[in-house]
């Protein structure tokens, strides 16, 4: 459900979501709760990856683990070089763990992130999961 808000035409709509800058894009769940925020311009592929990250977060917060895992995987398949990719590795594994209680999936994450995205903050976040 796309909503377009021009800040000069609808300033109250802009402030309603605590927006402070343009461009800003929000991904909300069906109840209007914000689940992801993108501030500033991004190239097309990065933006698309961020939108998928938002949809994955919506599914995750609804405890739709399989849907979330699938969306995180879609990011990795379509946009493996995006900024959203290392975060997707992390949350894809968490989604799988939530669905199965199989913690071994988390143990693979630090190695994957170190190999593919060693400079990402997500590689650091996964360090405690290293076997």
């Amino acid at each position: 459900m796309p909503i377009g808000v021009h800040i000069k035409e609808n300033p109250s709509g802009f402030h309603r979501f605590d927006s402070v800058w343009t461009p800003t894009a929000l991904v909300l769940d069906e109840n209007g709760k914000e689940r992801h925020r993108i501030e500033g311009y991004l190239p097309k592929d990065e933006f698309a990856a961020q939108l998928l990250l938002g949809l994955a977060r919506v599914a995750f917060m609804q405890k739709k683990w399989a849907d979330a895992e699938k969306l995180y995987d879609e990011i990795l398949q379509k946009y493996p070089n995006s900024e959203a990719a290392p975060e997707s590795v992390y949350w894809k594994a968490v989604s799988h763990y939530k669905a199965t209680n199989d913690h071994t999936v988390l143990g693979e994450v630090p190695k994957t992130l170190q190999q593919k995205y060693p400079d990402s903050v997500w590689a650091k976040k996964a360090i405690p999961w290293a076997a």
Partner: protein
Amino acid sequence: MAVTWNKDIDAALSQAKTQHKPVLVDFSAAPA
């Protein structure tokens, strides 16, 4: 595929709730 942007926030949020769909809100200052 062209996107049809809703300008009525409340109507769009209500529709999203009814249809169980997520929402994308795009804030812009760019000239139309």
